[in-house]
């Protein structure tokens, strides 16, 4: 029998797996019904939230992108996990008790897995930080880790508030500009991050809503003082990436170099968005 001291020690280390293991010895049925133990994620965004929320033992598989250090904030924690490429034939042998996907709800694997009677949950794509909180809570509830979820949200909010407290909202003009001229206008995560970090997103001035591609002339007309970019695949080369090396861009920002914001900070919804806010705020100096 366990006494209270040992139990709280275990709790402090939040080693969820140990509790589950011990608990499951006494009440195997109730536990397995409440908390999924063989969770599979087929999307980078749910991969990362899952790795933050649950103990590794409960994760049966995550998507291959979770290992990519450029895209995945949790690449280190992801190593060693079994990976999948979102194909049904890979998922079936894993016998998942919960399948997580994000955004692209129409994906064939999601449809097929549902059809075969598996529990599949699709988290919506978010365009703001309120949506990130909602997604974390929803996923935490699904995996039975509500308190860990609240903890993540608190940490994220604390970091963001620390940045916003010392900044004004009407900051200098900036834009997020990626290869082939992709930019983020209103109703995007990047727009909110820029605002929180004290920048004014000029893409919204020229009427960009959501994600859109703009030419160099439009970029110039928008007159940003600072350009942020994210390299999805650094070290590779293409016409799209060549466009970012156009000399006019440096002249536009008066030799002020483009600031590279690690893609993994804001490609997905998650508490790492706070790090993106910090990174953009530190570009003021």
């Amino acid at each position: 029998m366990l006494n209270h001291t040992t139990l709280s020690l275990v709790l402090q280390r939040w080693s969820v797996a140990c509790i589950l293991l011990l608990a499951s010895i006494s009440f195997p049925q109730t536990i397995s019904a409440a908390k999924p133990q063989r969770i599979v994620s087929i999307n980078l965004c749910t991969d990362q939230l899952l790795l933050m929320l649950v103990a590794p033992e409960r994760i049966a598989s995550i998507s291959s992108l979770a290992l990519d250090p450029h895209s995945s904030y949790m690449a280190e924690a992801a190593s060693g996990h079994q990976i999948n490429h979102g194909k049904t034939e890979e998922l079936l042998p894993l016998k998942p008790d919960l399948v997580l996907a994000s955004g692209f709800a129409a994906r064939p694997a999601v449809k097929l897995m549902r059809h075969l009677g598996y529990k599949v949950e699709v988290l919506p794509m978010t365009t703001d930080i309120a949506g990130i909180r909602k997604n974390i809570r929803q996923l935490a509830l699904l995996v039975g880790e509500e308190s860990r979820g609240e903890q993540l949200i608190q940490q994220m909010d604390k970091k963001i508030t620390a940045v916003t407290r010392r900044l004004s909202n009407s900051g200098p003009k900036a834009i997020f500009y990626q290869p082939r001229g992709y930019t983020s206008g209103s109703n995007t995560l990047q727009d909110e991050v820029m605002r929180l970090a004290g920048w004014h997103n000029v893409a919204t001035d020229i009427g960009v809503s959501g994600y859109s591609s703009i030419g160099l002339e439009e970029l110039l007309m928008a007159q940003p003082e600072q350009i942020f970019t994210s390299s999805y695949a650094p070290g590779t080369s293409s016409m799209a990436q060549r466009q970012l090396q156009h000399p006019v861009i440096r002249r536009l920002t008066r030799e002020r170099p483009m600031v590279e914001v690690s893609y993994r900070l804001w490609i997905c919804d998650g508490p790492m968005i706070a790090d993106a806010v910090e990174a953009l705020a530190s570009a003021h100096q």
Partner: protein
Amino acid sequence: MNSSRTNTGLSQGGIITMFTLLLLLLFFVSLTLGSNPLPLLKAAADAVSESPTIISLILTEIRLPRTLIALLAGATLGLCGAVMQGLLRNPLASPGLIGSSSGAAFGAVLVLYLGITDVVQLALPVGGMLGSLAAMLLVYMLAGRDASIITLILAGVAINTLALALVSLILNLAPSPYAVQEIALWMLGSVADKGMHDFWLLLFPTLIGWGLLAGSGKALDALTLGEDTAHTLGFNLPAIRWRLFLALALAVGAAVSITGAIGFVGLVTPHLIRPLVGHQPSRLLTTSALGGAAILLLADILVRLLPPGQEIKVGVITSLVGAPFFLYLILKTRRVQL
């Protein structure tokens, strides 16, 4: 044929003057038009002042290179079309149809997506040139020296298909995630969002290519009488052929490596020019270059007049106009052969 007058009654000099004036007009229209109309005089004044403004940057760093590149690439295509039609004595010969454009695209794609151009900028036109030369030689060898119109075109189709398949393959295998979406860029061609650095990269190989082609008019004139006659007239045909192949590869390779394979300008231009200057190749070269420049610049201006948003590629316009013209040429050729 030796009179300085042509069927239109204009002298060669008159036609060249006319085209130059047209190009000047298009040049200024091209500088004015874009995502927003540009007050040209004010932008030019700002450009020479100490601190450049947004409009002067748009003028000097975006519109000017775009316009100059369209002029150079168009002139190359028109000139090379005229030379190829003379050299191969085939009305359907052109950079697009006998593989030199797609070969150039293959060469340029190979060096760009492997990242070689990040180390040596000049690798881009060099890759285009080597690809272009290889494709042209293959077509020439496949078709044989005295190929009929159809054999040459068939050989061209085969090499085109191969080169474009290789372009797709490389773009699919390329490590850059943006590569696959750039297939259309290489197959249709575009002069948008280029810079002066692209223009300088294009300029020197183009000028060398044009220089090598410039003196070929007399030889091409002699070739219209047949290879034997040309030989009797004292022309060293193998040497001329090599020089021209090299020059065509230089000019087409450089143009395609910067703009992608823009179709039909090379095919159509000499046919539009012939009624003005007659059928003598030597009289066709300069005018075809000017005509090609005007056609490509005009097409690029049209692209910019379409509603903004996702800008269509200039190659779409040239192909939409050029393809029906190509069909007309085929029908005309068939009638002659029958």
